């Protein structure tokens, strides 16, 4: 779960990472008021969960409260990469001497948290990593021991930070690490961490991604969720524990298991078809779950045919068949449904479907073939 800059900054503040003075606003007049409180000069930053806000015109410096209101009005009317701007952050402007990059993420290779730092902050860190890898300093953290002060100093050394800033830097990185840990983040990033002309270190931007699997430990995070970035069908899917992603094609897919779902999409593509979605009904899916999945797929008007590929493992095929039949009875769609069931209790499942006149296939190749033909208007 990605957090907005203003949400991440609120968390940083709680963990003693210094942030600029500022507040979030929903309407332009608030921006003016905040600017007045902050002494006039402010930066107006659109709060959308995509990169490249600056280039898209979603970040503007205002010289006084009046201009703050103007820019706020402008930005609040924007869409950036398809996302409407519903909130802006109005922050004080600080005079910058140097920009640093500082982030903590999970390193898959070492299976440990890793701190990434660079004296070249403020720009796309992945670009820096590609062009000048020597400017990136990485340090792995033992997950049982935790981040130690000597490591923080190693990082300060690694980015050639002047001694006079070490004390502030240690406090910030310690705070960032605590935020990363306590919030179950998979990313906690400050880009840029600036050194101001009056020698303070401040997190000018903030980015956090929370581990979806750990949200049960952070019920308060659910309130921070920004539903704008998620399609309504995806939100609906989550309610039922389904993993759904809408795509551009016309063959709806319902598969158990993410790998098999991808393979099913792949084979559809290979046969010249276009998958309308990724949908993993997960393990142990009962009738209710399958019915919900069917309805979600059908909520996409582009869907011309539905391919259901279930290979029983945790999932019992008779349960799937029952769910399917109950859902089909419920929605009464005219979209043809092709079903392939193999594995645990598959025969019982197939029997149930055959009795209800649903099209079945024996292999994945066969199922994909039939579906593609049906989607292109062909008959069987």
């Amino acid at each position, binding site marked *: 779960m990605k957090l907005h800059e203003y949400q991440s900054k609120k968390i940083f503040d709680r963990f003693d990472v210094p942030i600029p003075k500022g507040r979030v606003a929903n309407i332009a007049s608030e921006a003016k008021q905040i600017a007045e409180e902050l002494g006039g000069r402010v930066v107006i930053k659109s709060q959308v969960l995509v990169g490249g806000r600056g280039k898209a015109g979603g970040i503007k410096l205002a010289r006084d409260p009046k201009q703050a209101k103007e820019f706020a009005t402008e930005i609040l009317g924007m869409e950036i990469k398809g996302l409407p701007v519903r909130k802006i952050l109005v922050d004080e402007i600080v005079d910058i001497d140097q920009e640093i990059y500082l982030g903590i993420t999970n390193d898959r290779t070492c299976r440990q948290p890793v701190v990434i730092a660079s004296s070249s902050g403020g720009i796309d860190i992945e670009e820096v990593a590609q062009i000048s890898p020597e400017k990136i300093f990485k340090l792995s953290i033992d997950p049982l021991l935790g981040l130690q002060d000597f490591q923080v100093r190693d990082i300060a050394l690694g980015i050639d930070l002047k001694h006079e800033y070490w004390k502030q830097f240690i406090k910030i990185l310690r705070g960032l690490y605590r935020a990363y840990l306590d919030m179950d983040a998979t990313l906690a990033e400050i880009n840029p961490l600036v050194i101001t002309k009056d020698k303070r270190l401040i997190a000018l931007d903030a980015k956090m991604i929370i581990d979806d*699997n750990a949200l049960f430990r952070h019920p308060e995070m659910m309130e921070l969720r920004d539903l704008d970035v998620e399609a309504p069908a995806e939100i609906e899917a989550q309610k039922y524990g389904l993993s759904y992603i809408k795509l551009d094609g016309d063959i709806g897919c319902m598969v158990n298991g993410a790998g098999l779902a991808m393979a099913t999409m792949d084979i559809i593509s290979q046969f010249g078809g276009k998958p309308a979605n990724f949908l993993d009904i997960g393990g142990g899916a009962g009738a209710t779950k399958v019915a919900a999945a069917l309805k979600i797929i059908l909520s996409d008007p582009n869907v011309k045919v539905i391919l259901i590929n279930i*290979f029983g493992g945790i999932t019992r095929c008779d349960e799937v068949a029952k769910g399917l039949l109950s859902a089909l009875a419920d929605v009464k769609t005219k979209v043809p449904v092709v079903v392939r069931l193999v594995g645990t209790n598959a025969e019982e499942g197939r029997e149930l479907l055959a009795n209800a006149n649903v099209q079945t296939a024996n292999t994945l190749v066969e199922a994909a073939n039939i579906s593609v033909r049906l989607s292109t208007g062909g008959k069987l």
Partner: protein
Amino acid sequence: MSILVNKNSRILVQGITGNEGNFHAWQMYQYGNNVVAGVTPGKGGEWVFEGKVPVFDSVKVAKEATGANVSVIFVPAHFAGDAMLEAADAGIELIVCITEGIPVRDMMRVRKYLDQKGSKLIGPNCPGLITPSEAKVGIIPGNITMPGNVGVISRSGTLTYEVLYAMMLLGIGTSTCVGIGGDPISGLSYIDLLEMFELDPLTDQIVLIGEIGGTDEQKAADYISRYMTKPVVAFIAGQSAPSGKRMGHAGAIIESGSGTAEEKIKALQEVGVQIARHPEEIAILLNR
């Protein structure tokens, strides 16, 4: 022969009284008779499966009483980290964690501790493993594969069944099939298992089933070119997946253009691995 588990494995089921745990433990029990104990804290003293399998309060007690050396975990995500630590602390040699949705933070700590204790881990978020006719540890259906000379390694669950089933239809069996799971932090890797299969006298060829996300398949390719003498056939799922969208598995995401199926396929092809276009084709590409 086989790797990791065989007919002498003494299997313990953590979470044996839960819905899924009970269902699959029963499947395992019926497949052979190597389920020696169950553990559910607070239910020690009960018996399951018509009084044949005892339930204990802790892994330590279960191990002492039954000599269990493999544990398969079906407990909910909140408790799975603790269950793995418990198994390792009790000295269980092989821990197979089926549970999905375990927080990464928990897994980083668990993996570190297990390494220190010397316990092997398979999973989490995996279907487990099976040595046909000998030992079924996890949720891989027993009726879709048979004994044979192919070692199978996969990050996926049902996709693996698809492959096993297609193989069986062509009369090809497996030595051992291991589902290593789709999470970013997990236990045994492709490389660990390639090494075991290379050393296993009854494995003659290997199937590697991968998917988008991470660089494990690329590392496997590198390992194959250096150390493997046995032929490898692979399939990579997610060629049609868009970047930036997580495809179900916590690990299956193409991040800023890296971890794509194309990269992985290229790396494997370059070291002589045959690539199947769809899961059923794997069976066709194998030697019979």
